[in-house]
């Protein structure tokens, strides 16, 4: 091993207020390889990325090298692009209202001499060059808002690559695939391969272990703030082995639908002719004690279904909950709530939890009106119910007064589930609840979903994860073009679901 590593990290640590969240981290990435950084939420992998990108200041003593040149610590975030490091973040960091050219060139605009005005011609050329290299055709003058998802990815990558000699540097993708719909993932992976084949080193941070196995050459795993395995070739790993690496134990999803049988009770929910968003005329029966999954491609309307039932977006149709009819034409979140519908949104930070408030405040907010009096919310039930949620979901730390922002993503998701299950809803509606939670938390979220049915609720699980659906659902309805195209009844496998999803799409196109 005489070659110089493209990126080398030695002894990077970070301590927040006396708590060490990352200790003595090491990382070596060779030119031309795709390297994956894996670990649960709270394992320290986002901290490591934030230290390398200079968002956080590392504790003294660590060192970061690019091509053998020491660039820190301390790291100067402004100089990273020149030093060969580029980052593509989770949300891709694009501004929809601006043009492709402006998005790519932000911060590195070419300017005319004397006037200092932006030189649009040179900027456009530079953008075009980056696109040529990536082999994509995008109009540099188009507004980003008008682009297809795969094109948005290309714009973000072009920003990271501009003014680079092909094959140089390091590009870091920090959970980027999360912002990319399934259909566009192949293009994205192709682009990563292209970069690596040219000699650029690629570091991907990902929760999705299958993605890691598919595109990465080597893997570095973090657990509890330390690197536990460094640079393991993926050729030596399968999904089970990689899961063990991340968790420290086997993390297979249990078959909760079998191990937690629920008695299907009388009553339940009837959805009648739902329309709204991309949904066009969906009807379904969900009995109490039953978990019904909905799935489909991104274009199928799946993403509109849960908000529609929950009253968060406007639409038409009716939801009959235990004989009481709720008109979705004039529904609202509070009307849905009164009808016994608990809707758990997908966007945990934007819509699920107020992260600067405490766990107790977040857990009890939907129930204040029912359990409290108008003139007094009452403290005792809040504390005891919150404690029950914390214990039931094994939230760590067990502290009702903890600020939600200080919890890890998986624990936040548990708090979010607990917040809605607390009221004992008639209908529980979940929108992709395992997005961006690690393997360990995923199990507890799915178990809680099944438990809600065992406790007598009707449950709707909208998900694009076949494994999740197999684990907890009694039936799965596959959407295509806003309508129910296929109904699967247990027993079914993840392959059955995928075949139905994509088979339905093909059928729809023919």
């Amino acid at each position, binding site marked *: 091993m005489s070659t110089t590593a493209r990126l080398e990290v030695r002894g990077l640590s970070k301590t927040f207020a006396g708590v060490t969240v990352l200790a003595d981290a090491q990382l070596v990435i060779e030119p031309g390889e795709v390297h994956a950084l894996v670990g649960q939420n709270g394992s320290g992998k986002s901290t490591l990325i934030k230290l390398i990108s200079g968002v956080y200041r590392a504790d003294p003593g660590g060192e970061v090298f690019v091509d053998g040149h020491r660039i820190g610590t301390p790291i100067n975030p402004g100089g990273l692009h020149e030093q060969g490091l580029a980052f593509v973040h989770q949300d891709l960091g694009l501004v929809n209202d601006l043009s492709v050219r402006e998005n790519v060139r932000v911060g590195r605009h070419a300017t005319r001499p004397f006037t200092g005005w932006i030189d649009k011609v040179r900027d456009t050329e530079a953008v075009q060059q980056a696109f040529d290299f990536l082999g994509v055709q995008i109009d540099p003058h188009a507004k980003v808002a008008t682009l297809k998802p795969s094109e948005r990815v290309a714009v973000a990558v072009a920003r990271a690559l501009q003014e680079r000699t092909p094959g140089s540097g390091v590009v870091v993708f920090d959970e980027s695939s999360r912002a990319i719909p399934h259909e566009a993932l192949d293009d994205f992976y192709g682009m990563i391969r292209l970069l690596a084949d040219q000699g650029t080193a690629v570091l991907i941070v990902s929760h999705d272990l299958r993605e890691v196995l598919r595109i990465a050459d080597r893997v570095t795993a973090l657990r509890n703030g330390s690197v536990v395995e460094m640079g393991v070739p993926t050729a030596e790993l399968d999904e089970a082995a990689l899961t063990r690496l991340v968790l420290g134990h086997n993390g297979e999803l249990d078959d909760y639908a079998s191990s937690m049988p629920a008695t299907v009770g009388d009553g339940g929910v009837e959805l009648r002719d739902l329309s709204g968003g991309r949904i066009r005329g969906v009807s379904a029966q969900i009995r109490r004690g039953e978990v019904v999954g909905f799935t489909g491609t991104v274009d199928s309307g799946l993403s509109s279904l849960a908000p529609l039932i929950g009253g968060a977006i406007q639409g038409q149709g009716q939801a009959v909950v235990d004989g009481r009819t709720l008109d979705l034409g004039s529904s609202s979140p509070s009307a849905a709530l009164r009808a016994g519908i608990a809707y758990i949104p997908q966007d945990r930070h934007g819509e699920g*939890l107020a992260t600067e*408030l405490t766990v107790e*405040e977040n857990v009890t907010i*939907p129930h204040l009106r029912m359990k409290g009096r*108008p003139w007094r*919310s009452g403290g005792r039930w809040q504390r005891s119910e919150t404690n029950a949620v914390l214990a039931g979901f094994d939230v760590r730390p067990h502290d009702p007064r903890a*600020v939600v*922002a*200080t919890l890890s993503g998986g624990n936040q998701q548990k708090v979010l589930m607990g917040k809605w299950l607390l009221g004992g809803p008639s209908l529980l509606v979940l929108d992709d609840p395992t997005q961006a939670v690690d393997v360990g938390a995923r199990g507890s979220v799915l178990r809680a979903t099944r438990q809600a049915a065992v406790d007598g609720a009707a449950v709707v699980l909208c998900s694009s994860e076949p494994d999740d659906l197999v684990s907890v659902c009694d039936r799965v309805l596959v959407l295509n073009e806003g309508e129910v195209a296929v109904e699967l009844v247990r027993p079914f496998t993840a392959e059955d679901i995928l075949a139905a999803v994509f088979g339905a799409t093909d059928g729809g196109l023919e």
Partner: protein
Amino acid sequence: MSATTTTPVQARPEPARLRRFWAIVLQRYSLVLLWLLMIIVLIIAVPGDVSLVSALRAVLGQQTPLIFLGLAVVITMAVGEFDLSFAGIFGIAAVTVPALVVLHGWPYPLAALAALVVALAFGAINAGLIVGVGINSVVVTLGVASVAGGLAFLLSGETTVSGMDPALSGLALGRFLGLPLVFWYGLVLAVVVTYVMSATPLGRHMLFVGANRSVARLAGVSVSRVRTGAYLSSALLCGFAGVVISTGLGGFNPGTATTMLMPTFAAVFLGTVAVVPGRFNPMGTLIAAYFLLTGVFGLQLLRLTGWVTEVFFGVALVAAVTISFLLQRRVRG
């Protein structure tokens, strides 16, 4: 043997609990401690005989709308709204009373009621444009502040209106336990607002509307209603402040209303470092207001007036926001 081993075990929780107690006191009530310290320093520094009681009485007995306006601003800030019009609304309400009584011969109770209605009307304009139409709150309240301020001059004929029946001033200046009623009104209102904000579902709903509107909406909170209510109750408090202050003074000079802008913001933001650190809270505002009033009072005793006051409020505002920000950052890690 057992005695020697158990004693230290039992003794250990005591200092730990005591330390936690002091940590909480320092975290939440350091402003109160600072305030007491400031009073003691004043008593020593100011030449002549000033007793603790007389100093406290002078500070707490001030005729100022600061507490009322501070509460009004806390309410709007808590739900995530920004209101620059509170001083203007206070001013026009304060002018309405003497203008109607002295210039137009209205009976006092009717004039006071009219002042409250005028204040509520401005609050309704704020709410209608900001919540109803969806216009930026800074722009709307800045405009409304200017309109209210201008109309106040129109009502007063561009001068100080005075000459109300001196007997009426007892409603504001009458003493109870050695302090004027103005102080007690402020205290009672602060207690009421504190209760509503900390112990009722409405208060928790306000907190969530301020923290994250989507989360609040999905939890079944009527976000528009809470925001509208905040603007209306804030305006009503400003109107009440106007009635009390002009009644106490027997008149009002509309030019003085805008001078309340800085001290009020300073008190509200300084209040976020006390009692419930990091959040807009009424008791914190009350403490901060008297902390600031004491500072100004002290400066006056030291014969420092005029420009010093403005500098003092400015420093207090920026320092408060800085401390509050640093506290928040420490909480989030």
